[in-house]
Structures are given as structure tokens and as C-alpha cells.
């Protein structure tokens, strides 16, 4: 009995009427002039097509290829990231943390869903859900294992709980075999999860 565990289904399937309720509120707010329908579309367009993990990937690729940029990024991430044109909402105060053979960084927000929008876009559902929020600080290696990341025991895990307005970007380790790739090709290798710390980039197959 003690190992019995009911299967969870924490509400990723919304009630059927939520879409209707949202539509009704939007209609009222647009008709009253509280919000501009075209502005809503522009916000959605921004986070579906403009602001997302490709931004962060460019930051990472630049850090891998430009030692002076890497130094600036680790010293003042907000300013360094702004050099690439990224900043603004939920990226106002950035810190970059670098993975090395000895240290692996993992970012979480136990209290809500803080996430570096300016470089990674909107957070994935699992990042905002209770299991990841609850477990990352107490059993980070078990969490990583569920992402198929198994670290050697001598690697130190540093968990960053985003309790304030500082937002964290993980600089993953440059993958083995990527020595000849240029900055654009390197950026294409960088995944969203590797910049949260829930993935390690695999070696490049040449």
C-alpha cells in the first residue's frame, strides 16, 4: 500500500467552458475599450514568433565563440545580452551561469513561474507545474534524471530558485565535436532545456 500512487492528472486538460469564458471576457474588454484587439494579437505574435529560445541560443553561441563577450556576459548579463538586442519584460535583470565539467546549473521558480522571457520566451508547462517547482530544490538529480540527464556524482549541481526579479540563463557546455561550427551553426544546436539546465547538449555527429 505504501507504494501505491494514484496517477495524477493536474489539469492540463481544461474544462470545456474555459475557452468560452475567455472569449466572453475578451469581447467585453475590447468593446469597452479596456484593451485593443490588435494589441492582443501583437502580444501573441511577439511570444509565438519573435521572443523565444532562439534569442538565448544566440547569446550562448556568442559566448562560446567570443571570449570577450563571455567575460562581459558573466560580469553583467543584462548589458551583454542587450548587445544582441534582447531585453525588456522578464529579462530586465539577468544573470548568466555557466556549466562546466565540474558544475551543472538548474533554474527553477518554486514560488510561481519566474523565467527569463527575453531570452527563452514563455516557460513550458512543466516548468510552471507543481512537480518541477516542488522537487528541483530538494532532489535536483532525480528531476534531472526524468529529463534523461544523469550527472557523474563528482559534478556539483547548483539550483537557482528565482525568488526575486533576477532571471537566470544557463550557458550549457559547448558540445564535443562542434569545434569547426560557426556561430550560427552553434546557435542551432542550443536547446531551450539546455538553457534551463534540464538538458545537456549531445556531441555533434560530424
Amino acid at each position: 500500500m505504501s507504494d501505491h500512487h494514484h496517477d495524477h492528472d493536474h489539469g492540463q486538460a481544461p474544462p470545456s467552458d474555459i475557452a468560452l469564458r475567455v472569449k466572453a471576457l475578451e469581447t467585453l474588454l475590447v468593446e469597452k475599450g479596456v484593451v485593443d484587439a490588435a494589441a492582443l494579437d501583437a502580444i501573441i505574435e511577439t511570444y509565438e514568433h519573435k521572443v523565444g529560445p532562439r534569442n538565448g541560443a544566440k547569446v550562448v553561441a556568442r559566448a562560446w565563440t567570443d571570449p570577450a563577450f563571455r567575460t562581459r556576459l558573466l560580469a553583467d548579463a543584462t548589458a551583454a545580452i542587450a548587445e544582441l538586442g534582447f531585453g525588456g519584460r522578464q529579462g530586465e535583470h539577468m544573470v548568466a551561469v555557466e556549466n562546466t565539467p565540474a558544475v551543472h546549473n538548474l533554474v527553477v521558480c518554486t514560488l510561481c513561474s519566474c523565467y527569463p522571457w527575453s531570452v527563452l520566451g514563455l516557460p513550458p508547462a512543466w516548468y510552471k507545474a507543481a512537480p518541477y517547482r516542488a522537487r528541483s530544490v530538494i532532489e535536483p538529480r532525480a528531476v534531472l534524471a526524468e529529463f534523461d540527464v544523469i550527472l557523474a556524482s563528482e559534478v556539483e549541481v547548483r539550483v537557482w530558485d528565482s525568488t526575486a526579479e533576477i532571471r537566470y540563463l544557463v550557458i550549457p557546455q559547448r558540445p564535443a565535436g562542434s569545434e569547426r561550427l560557426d556561430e550560427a551553426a552553434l546557435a542551432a544546436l542550443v536547446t531551450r532545456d539546455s538553457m534551463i539546465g534540464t538538458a545537456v547538449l549531445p556531441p555533434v555527429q560530424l
Partner: protein
Amino acid sequence: MNGIHDMGGMHGFGPIRPERDPPVFHARWEARVLALTLAVGAWGRSNIDAGRHARELQPPDKYLAWPYYQSWFERLVGQVVEQGLVTETELASGQPETTLNPALPADRVAAVLEAGGPSARPISEAPRFGIGDRVRAQTINPPGHTRLPRYVRGRVGIIERDHGGQVLPDTNAHFRGECPQRLYGVRFTGHELWGEGARDSVHLDLWEGYLEPA
């Protein structure tokens, strides 16, 4: 508040369900809720801390059961009324009784998102703590908003970074002023937080008033 949102260290929520290449939104209503929340926020009648606290005040069973953007939607319904943007009558009928000019026109969206809302504030007080200092997170249990999680209260960590002055959520969420305080990056060992057998470390950003010398 020691709310259901303060879940760091809890067991029993089951496995994580990674999605490797999820869409940004899983349904169109989610996208509309995000956009509505940002557009209403542009009226400037609340702040990010009050917005977080509003979710913390949602019934705990609902907080856990609702899809994420439904929690945002239920908050939004409360916000538009509390902020005087919509009356209860309008909400019930769906018919506006007056009209306004949107605070965020479409041609301002890019500029507003790019500006963001910096929370850094100049402060004149000298730092109480220096890098490397041992500090203890205070034992406090305020009924209102705080960003000091339960799992570090009473625990000893090391100051690793000085982030300068930042708006204090504990007052700002309750519209009692920004009261900026110095914010520190503090490292706690897993052993200190969780006991024997715990490894690794957890870093939190904590305001000066959350800390005492250890």
C-alpha cells in the same frame, strides 16, 4: 503567506512531464489570457507583486487543479473589477456601460514589452552584508506576500552576490510602497536545507531584511 504556492521541497506531486518541443500555447484561449493580462497590466493600476499575490490567494485546491492559464484567467476576472476597469454589472451582462481608450494600443506593444519593468532602485544605505558573510534567513511567517520561501527560513547560507537595491515585494504587493532594499544572492548547502545525505546547493535571491548575521 505560507500558501500553497510555497511548494519548494514538497513531495507527492508525481513525475515531471517534459515536453521536448511544445507549442508556445496549447490552446488559443491560453494565448488570449496571456495577452489580456499584459494589456490590462498596461493600465498601471496594479504591480507584478500584487499580481503574484492574487494567485497565491486562490483556493489551494483550485491553485493545484486549474491549468496554469486558467489560474491567470480567474485572477484577471478579479483584477478588472478591483481595478475599476469593468463593473460587476458589465461582467454579468457582457455589455459595457461606458467606454474607455485602451491603455495599450497595438502600435505601442513592441515598445512596452521592450521596456519591461525594471525593479532595480537606487538605495543609499551601505550594505549590511558582504560577499562571503554567513547569514541566517529569518524565521518569519507573515500572513501577506513574501518571497522568502519556507524551506530556507532559519537556515544558514553564504552571501555570494550583491544585486543592489530592488523593490521589496512584501510591501509593494500590498500597495504599501516599493521600500527598496538591497538584494543578495545567497547560497545554501543541501545539507543545511534538507539534512544528512543531501548534496549540492540551492541559491536564492533574498532581500536584506530577510537576513540576519549568523
